[in-house]
């Protein structure tokens, strides 16, 4: 029921929002949370529990009411207790079978005796029946549903920076922010609630002065130019070096702070008694939030179970808003007389000290509270005596203690200690730059919290380099804010410790009996704290129970590791936009215009082939091959790594990093280059060209470009040779103009003498092509007369256009990666990474000729000296299928089988349009490597194809194509 207007309420009564829950229409106000709007409409039961499907409602109103999560359209697991109400929301409870009221699983609770902790480990596992049981479990499990139509939401994830980050805008956090800002720091203060203030806004004990103090403090913070106050924003975790993700509704901000003040407060903890989960049983702070934030009367007649002054204050808040407080039940026999307690007594409210609630009596269908049965507080672990009294009420409010919201402190590496006087874990040793204040620091009295905040804020500013830390003494608490054992045994159980997981007191006793008697094992066996609230309301009680069962102190039992996140974070916020950097050569638009079919090549996209109308992929590729063999082709090779090494020791450098020799390479000539790692494995290849005595230009593979440059830079940092390496990969555009007509066409565009004497095979020349300064190399990767032409990137497109125009009469065809693969296969050239693997050495792949073991040193040489002496395990060879082979051809990585054993595998294979047959490369046993040897290749269907080992290259074995007469 909605209360009359309350000063400071969050709801806007002028704005009414219609929504539906479980098919029924409701109205709430702007500023409501889903739960507050539903309770304002006396909805009662808001959800069902995970395991037994028991009726549940509000527990905390603090973002851990897991039993009241809703499905909102495509959004699963919407936290009703804190999610702002929006007009038109159509909500349903999650994990019901047939709706909340008629949930077919609602009788599961009756079988609770069959389902003690870990029951599922003890049965259901027969090999035959497990799949059936698993299907049943999978039907019952999970909360909300995903909607496959949900789009990929790309959010504007961002970074931010501040001097001091204060987490929590309650009284201590606000004080900390002010103190830090006063010392000159730029401060950001975040709070997960829609408005700042924390308990200062609702735990009032009906004292107007408290509200006024809070308003004053908040106004000072809001007015301070150096403070940014971010409400509706939670700190989701703490990561190394003060790196805190802040989550608001739509965006994740990664905040880097110089100092962090954790003023995150404490979670109020439930008392454990029979039926403590009925709708109508809630934490005192939840009731107070309902009243002061949402003007919702949580009940009409309340029994208030307390163990501290906060509880008495809650009783006063209830009484002040028209709720009849039937009794305050204080667990403590002799509470220290505090102000709030006096005020309660002065009001004539009945106070039962030394009493506990034994059980809550259910109303109709177990969906409400009809009364509370109280008795004298028994010794821990014992049953209450038979002297009982039933107090008729429709709500039970619990205020028996707190657990510090120390998740971020744990994640930061804080050592915590159990402070017996407070019955609470408090920070013992904080990491550098991390500060704590307020309830999380064990300071509960309002005035002390403000003082503690001032202390922490000042110290945090000083740590960030602003001012000096003020020496402030915070007085000790005069009573323990938490009760050491707010737990009452009951023969019928249903005294819940973990509301997410429906764990009862007995479950813990059983788990410990089975040997799960340390906190981590207990957690894993019982699943306590593993639900979506991550133990916020259950870990502390679980720890108390375990400590008692094993006869230890809470300090000795210790806590489980608190891991991110503080509250769960939607993947869309974590993923952000999803940056996928992609490199484009300067010729990208030309390829697109020519109908390129793109394929990924690391960070690049490369044309796989160019589409031709009415031709399939293979025909396109084969006709590109034929064009190169018979006329002229052009391919963009701008993705190759393009490096230079310059300086007196440039040649020495290359000698050390490649397995061949370069010291004697003539200026104006090029040479193939293979690189190994220290274990002798082939890792990259390319071409080295000598531009001048002290100047080399060399290429790497596309995938190796960035990593090879980086590693070479490291090596020269280590070797300190007198030379420098320049990465020109992106600075040059490069094409390979290849085919019998390449010289003729190039001749139209350059003044260079292209005769084979002036510009022989493997030579390099610098000149202009179509007026563009260019480096030209006569290479033969594809096996035809051809030129690799490298020009500054900004002139790449002009070069391409000029070559295409000049080549038109010769029938020039652009060709893609697939045609190039086929062309080089015909020529018997290997591709690193395809014809080699993570263990291939140069000897395995027929590069013995390139491996110059008589050089003093190169990377990998010493390992190759060992490998050289070992028997060969495999050998890469060429092979052909029969000329008239018509069946299903092998594919790459089909196995070579000899005597029923794996002898090797195919690394490359294709039908060669030039040779008119299938050709390929394969690893075989050295004994099979002789040309003419028949090898058996097994296909995926198990059949085998015979092939015969062939000499390489398949095409133009005498390299006549590179000679003038060709």
């Amino acid at each position, binding site marked *: 029921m909605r209360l009359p207007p309350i000063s400071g309420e969050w709801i806007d009564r002028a704005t009414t929002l219609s929504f539906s829950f479980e098919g029924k229409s409701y109205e709430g106000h702007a500023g409501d949370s889903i739960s507050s709007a539903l309770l304002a409409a006396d909805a009662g039961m808001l959800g069902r529990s995970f395991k037994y499907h028991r009726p549940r409602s509000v527990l905390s109103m603090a973002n851990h009411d897991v039993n009241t999560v809703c499905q909102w359209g495509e959004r699963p697991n919407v936290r009703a207790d804190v999610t702002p109400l929006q007009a038109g929301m159509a909500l349903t409870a999650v994990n019901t079978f047939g709706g909340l009221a008629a949930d077919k699983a609602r009788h599961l609770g009756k079988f609770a005796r069959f389902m003690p902790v870990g029951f599922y480990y003890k049965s259901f596992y027969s090999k035959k029946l497990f799949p059936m049981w698993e299907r049943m479990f999978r039907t019952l499990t999970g909360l909300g549903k995903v909607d496959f139509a949900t789009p990929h939401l790309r959010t504007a994830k961002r970074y931010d920076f501040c001097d001091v980050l204060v987490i929590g805008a309650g009284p201590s956090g606000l004080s900390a922010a002010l103190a830090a800002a006063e010392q000159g720091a730029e401060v950001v203060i975040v709070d997960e609630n829609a408005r700042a203030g924390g308990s200062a806004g609702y735990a009032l004990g009906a004292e107007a002065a408290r509200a006024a103090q809070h308003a004053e403090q908040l106004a000072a913070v809001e007015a301070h130019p150096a403070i940014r106050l971010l409400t509706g924003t939670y700190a989701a975790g703490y990561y*190394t070096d003060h790196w805190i993700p802040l989550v608001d509704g739509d965006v994740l901000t990664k905040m880097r702070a110089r100092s962090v003040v954790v003023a995150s407060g404490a979670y109020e903890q439930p008392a454990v008694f029979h039926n403590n989960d009925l709708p109508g049983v809630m934490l005192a702070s939840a009731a107070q939030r309902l009243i002061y934030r949402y003007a919702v009367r949580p009940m009409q007649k309340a029994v208030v179970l307390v163990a501290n002054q906060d509880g008495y204050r809650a009783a006063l808040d209830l009484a002040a808003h028209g709720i009849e407080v039937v009794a305050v039940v204080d667990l403590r026999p002799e509470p220290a007389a505090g102000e709030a307690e006096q005020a309660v007594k002065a009001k004539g409210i009945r106070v039962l000290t030394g009493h506990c609630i034994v059980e809550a009596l259910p109303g109709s269908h177990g969906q409400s509270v009809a009364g509370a049965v109280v008795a004298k507080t028994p010794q821990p672990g014992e049953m209450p005596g038979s002297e009982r009294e039933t107090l008729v009420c429709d709500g039970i409010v619990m205020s028996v203690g707190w657990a510090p919201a120390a998740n971020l402190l744990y994640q930061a590496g804080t050592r915590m200690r159990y402070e017996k006087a407070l019955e609470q874990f408090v920070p013992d040793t904080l990491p550098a730059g991390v500060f704590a204040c307020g309830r999380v620091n064990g300071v509960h009295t309002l005035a002390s919290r403000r003082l503690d905040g001032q202390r922490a804020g000042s110290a945090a500013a000083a740590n960030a380099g602003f001012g000096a830390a003020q020496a402030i003494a915070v007085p000790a608490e005069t009573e323990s804010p938490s009760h050491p054992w707010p737990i009452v045994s009951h023969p019928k159980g249903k005294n819940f410790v973990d509301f997410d997981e429906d764990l009862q007191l007995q479950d813990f006793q059983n788990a410990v009996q089975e040997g799960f008697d340390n906190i981590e094992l207990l957690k894993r066996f019982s699943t306590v704290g593993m639900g979506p609230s991550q133990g916020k309301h259950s870990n502390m009680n679980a720890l108390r129970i375990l400590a008692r069962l094993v006869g230890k102190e809470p300090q000795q039992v210790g806590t489980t590791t608190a891991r991110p996140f503080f509250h769960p974070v939607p993947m869309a916020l974590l993923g952000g936009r999803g940056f996928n950097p992609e490199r484009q050569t300067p010729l990208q638009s030309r390829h697109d215009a020519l109908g390129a079919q793109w394929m990924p090549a690391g960070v690049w996209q490369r044309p796989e082939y160019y589409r031709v109308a009415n031709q399939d992929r293979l025909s396109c590729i084969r006709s590109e091959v034929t064009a190169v063999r018979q006329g002229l082709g052009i391919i963009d090779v701008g993705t190759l790594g393009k490096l230079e090494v310059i300086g007196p020791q440039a040649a020495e450098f290359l000698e050390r990093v490649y397995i061949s020799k370069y010291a004697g390479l003539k200026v104006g000539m090029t040479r193939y280059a293979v690189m190994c790692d220290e*274990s002798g494995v082939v890792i990259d290849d390319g071409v080295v060209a000598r531009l001048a005595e002290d100047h080399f230009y060399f290429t790497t593979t596309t995938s190796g470009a960035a990593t090879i440059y980086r590693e070479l*830079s*490291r090596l020269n940092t280590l070797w300190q040779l007198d030379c420098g390496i320049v990465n020109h990969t992106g600075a040059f555009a490069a094409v390979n103009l290849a085919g019998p007509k390449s010289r003729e066409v190039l001749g139209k565009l350059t003044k260079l003498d292209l005769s084979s004497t002036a510009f022989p095979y493997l030579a390099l020349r610098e000149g202009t092509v179509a007026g563009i300064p260019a480096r030209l190399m006569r290479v033969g990767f594809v096996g035809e007369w051809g030129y690799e032409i490298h020009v500054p990137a900004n002139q790449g497109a002009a070069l391409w256009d000029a070559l295409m125009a000049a080549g038109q009469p010769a029938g020039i065809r652009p060709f893609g990666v697939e045609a190039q693969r086929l062309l080089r296969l015909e020529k018997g050239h290997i591709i690193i990474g395809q014809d080699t693997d993570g263990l291939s050495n140069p000897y395995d792949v027929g590069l013995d000729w390139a491996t110059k073991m008589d050089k003093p040193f190169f990377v990998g040489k010493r*390992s190759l000296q060992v490998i050289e002496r070992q028997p060969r395990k495999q050998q890469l060879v060429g092979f052909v299928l029969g000329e008239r082979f018509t069946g299903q051809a092998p594919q790459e990585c089909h196995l070579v089988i000899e005597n029923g054993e794996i002898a090797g595998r195919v690394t490359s294979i294709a039908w060669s349009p030039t040779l008119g047959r299938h050709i390929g490369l394969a690893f075989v046993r050295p004994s099979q490597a002789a040309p003419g040897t028949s090898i058996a290749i097994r296909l995926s269907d198990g059949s085998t194809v015979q092939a015969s080992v062939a000499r390489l290259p398949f095409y133009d074995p005498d390299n006549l194509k590179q000679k003038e007469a060709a």
Partner: protein
Amino acid sequence: MKIMTCPINGPRPVSEFFYWGEMRPMPDPDTCSDDAWADYVFNRNGAPGVKKEWWCHTASNTWFVAVRDTEKDQVLRTYLYGEQP
């Protein structure tokens, strides 16, 4: 995110860096035994401790040495190779 300090570019998020591994002195390949060489190539000091490591600030291609406690993931100091200590 972890902060790493490049001797040239200053403190930056660790995502701007490439980790190579612990610096391992190479034995003389001409004189060392096969076993000593294999030990250099393959074996690592995998135990936690304060190690000298190669790191590279990728945006500037700056290689440097980081002295790092690999258990606490704490960088004790960084310097250019050959410049210190």
